[in-house]
């Protein structure tokens, strides 16, 4: 036994000597420094994308990669909202009521294999995404075009019925069903991106959903970067596209997207110089990062709303006063300050403030008013009526903490015991959709910076409504706004619609999102954007010079 212990001691000594030797000999360069010199951006990107075909995917993770590979007609300005830069289109104009648009394609726009980009590619792309057989999940983003919805739903079998025309190889004309001043914003959505006709058809049929044209060895794209390697659950690497029309502007040589699911791992990787940008930041890490990584901590406004849904078909919750009582008893600011910590804004409306739009101010934290409303609703402490309510939320740990905060506020301010039901994601969605819940948590991220992306969902029968609430009057106002030519008038009408919606309180707005993340100080040209859709062609990596 003693000899064993002795040999253990010797080997331990040897190991520590070798370790020390290794430590001193290989002063390894941190990945961030190495890749900064090579001008390759390292981005944390949450999960493996569903696919890289812009007409198939539906999420933020996919969008982050696809905007590097492809380019729509217009491009997002790197730091300002409402300014549209030329993309695949060099210029565009519309008629005075924003229903007819003409786009002039880049005269020397090329796919990454050298094939010129023409209107034929756009016609093909829009036909592809709208063809019913393709079953593209985001086809509805193109419903603004006259005839698109009918064609996609199979009511009209001829693509010529969709009002897209090409007078010549570089001119694209669109006729819309209603005035749409924000069309350039829409074209920044990946569903509007062109796909290369010749490549798609070379590797399969037009509407074949698992057409292998997006494999690294096959893919051809029109963005500032092109796909180089794709290793499942490991990384996606895109490199600079030399044939891009504005290639001189592109400063990076490549981008690596890493699917890091665990936010704590992602933060550790950033702190250990393995990442330039993180996808997000867990609430638990925010205070720590704010203090110790002041330069790197970013907190940008993000176009999204968190809210509680009330099931208005529920026996008790059909009572408007009860819904209001529950809403006025919640101190969102306290939840933001003490749990979320990301500088979110306490929401008083469904639509986050954007541009000229002012959400109606119908909600605040007011426990007295909440108690008064509860009494009026007939559930006061002397009413003898008992409430059995359950708050449905997801299986995330953070969701549990926030749900417990709601639970505690209702108990403190109203004396109501609400139980919490945690469900895994798809069960949760299923329960919401089937109205098999009382109160449910919810969130919504805007697709484009216009209030309708937050208001259309509350129409009767919309798959995202999930509250059982609907109103003829509300939908009439929305229809009226849709046909309004004057942007200011249109906004006023949308505000009116939201005021009506909130006066019935089928949801309780809780807070407006921010995006918290960590950004390495060598990254330049990465400024706050409402949709967090940073155009990579303006991003640069600048190594520190010796100080």
């Amino acid at each position, binding site marked *: 036994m003693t000899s064993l212990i002795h040999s253990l001691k010797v080997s331990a000594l040897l190991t520590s000597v070798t370790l020390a030797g290794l430590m001193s000999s290989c002063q390894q360069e941190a990945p961030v420094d190495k890749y900064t010199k090579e001008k390759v951006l390292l981005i944390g990107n949450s999960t493996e994308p569903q696919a890289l075909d812009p007409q198939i995917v539906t999420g933020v993770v996919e969008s982050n990669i696809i905007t590097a590979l492809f380019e729509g007609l217009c491009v997002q300005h790197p730091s300002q909202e409402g300014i549209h830069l030329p993309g695949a289109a060099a210029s565009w104009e519309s008629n005075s009521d924003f229903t007819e648009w003409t786009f002039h394609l880049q005269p020397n726009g090329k796919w990454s294999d050298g094939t010129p980009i023409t209107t034929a590619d756009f016609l093909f792309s829009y036909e592809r995404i709208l063809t019913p057989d393709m079953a593209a999940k985001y086809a509805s983003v193109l419903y603004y075009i006259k005839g698109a919805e009918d064609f996609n739903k199979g009511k009209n079998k001829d693509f010529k019925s969709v009002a897209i025309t090409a007078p010549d190889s570089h001119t694209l004309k669109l006729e819309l069903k209603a005035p749409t001043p924000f069309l350039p914003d829409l074209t920044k959505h990946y569903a509007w991106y062109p796909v290369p006709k010749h490549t798609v058809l070379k590797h399969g049929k037009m509407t074949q959903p698992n057409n292998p044209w997006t494999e690294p060895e096959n893919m051809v794209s029109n963005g500032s970067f092109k796909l180089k390697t794709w290793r499942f659950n490991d990384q996606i690497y895109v490199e600079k596209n030399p044939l891009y029309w504005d290639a001189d502007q592109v400063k990076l040589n490549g981008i690596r997207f890493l699917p890091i699911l665990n936010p704590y791992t992602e933060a550790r990787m950033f702190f250990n110089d393995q990442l330039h940008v993180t996808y997000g930041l867990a609430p638990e890490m925010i205070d720590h990062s704010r203090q110790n990584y002041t330069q790197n901590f970013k907190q940008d406004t993000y176009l999204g709303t968190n809210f509680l849904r009330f099931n208005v078909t529920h026996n008790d919750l059909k009572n408007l006063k009860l819904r209001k009582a529950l809403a006025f008893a919640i101190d969102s600011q306290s939840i933001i300050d003490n749990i979320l910590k990301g500088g979110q804004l306490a929401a008083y409306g469904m639509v986050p403030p954007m541009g000229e739009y002012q959400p109606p101010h119908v909600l605040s934290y007011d426990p007295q008013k909440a108690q008064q409303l509860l009494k009026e609703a007939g559930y006061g402490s002397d009413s003898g009526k008992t409430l059995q309510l359950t708050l449905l939320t997801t299986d995330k*740990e953070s969701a549990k903490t926030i749900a417990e905060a709601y639970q505690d506020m209702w108990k403190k301010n109203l004396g109501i015991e609400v139980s919490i039901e945690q469900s895994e994601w798809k069960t949760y969605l299923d329960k919401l959709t089937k109205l098999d819940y009382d109160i449910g948590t919810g969130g919504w991220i805007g697709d484009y910076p216009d209030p309708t992306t937050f208001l259309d969902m509350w129409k009767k029968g919309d798959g995202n409504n999930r509250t059982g609430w609907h109103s003829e009057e509300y939908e009439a106002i929305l229809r009226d706004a849709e046909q309004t030519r004057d942007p200011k008038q249109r906004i006023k009408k949308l505000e009116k619609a939201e005021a009506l919606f909130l006066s019935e309180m089928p949801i309780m707005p809780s807070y407006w999102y921010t995006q918290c993340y960590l950004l390495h100080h060598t990254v330049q040209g990465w400024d706050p954007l409402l949709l967090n859709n940073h155009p990579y062609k303006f991003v640069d990596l600048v190594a520190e010079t010796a100080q």
Partner: protein
Amino acid sequence: MSHRSNKGSSLWSDAWLRLKKNRMATASLFILIIITLLCFVLPFFSIIKDPNIQNLENTFQQPNLHHLLGTDQVGRDLLARLLLGGQISILVGIVATALSVIIGVSYGSIAGYIGGKTDSIMMRIVDILYGLPFLVIIILFSILISEHLDIVAQTLIEDWELNKTMVLKFTNLIPLFIAISALGWLTMARMARAQVMTVKKQEYIEAAMSLGLSHWKILTRHIMPNILGSIIVYTTLTVPGFILTEASLSYLGLGVESPNSSWGILLKEGANYMETQPQLLIIPSIIFSITLFALNFLGDGLRDALDPKAAKD
């Protein structure tokens, strides 16, 4: 026959005597009893705060006179939550372990004892259950159970006039026990089978068989005492896993209902604050580890005490 039963009872009383001589084991037993008493009795005294009262202005307090172990991420008293969580976790540890030992050991030893085709079929069933995606079953089970459980709880509250919070706290544990032991017994069965197969081939068992003793007698009187030691050691090993599984399941809607807590949940929540508020992880870890240490040293002591060979000393 009476001779044998006397021997049986003396086996246990001898074991108890030997256990008492083992200082490590008796100290462990003492610690376990203390922790259990603290968790179940202390919350009745008013010095312990309400474990579910939040104070968002008072989060992440370090241990102080007002909050002896500090407060958590929503300002609840950590000591109170630790005691409340202990109730749940100790219950889960005892009941889920007992269930999976009973099922696993009976199943495994029957398979190992009978052998042949029966053994093959029984063990292949274990293989199938082992390979099933547990998450799928848990999700389906929690949906199935949630409706029926509400009815049970309702009856208990209204017809039996029991305290609502108490009822909800414990009725939700029943499906949890079922779920955890449904997973836990599989490895237990494999362990027991391997042991039984080894012991079965020993000379004294073959002698007992040739004497024409009933299978039941051979299994319970001769085989069981010989595999008991390993089973106890393995059992004590599974307890931490069960207690932690409870935490994962509670996020899927099975088990402890918010805002109630358990040690597993406290550890899971604490792990997220590892870098920023380490006390939220360290304090539950200490009490969790002490309990498990005690449990395992007690298990070792029991193993030694019950060892029939050692009895010859």
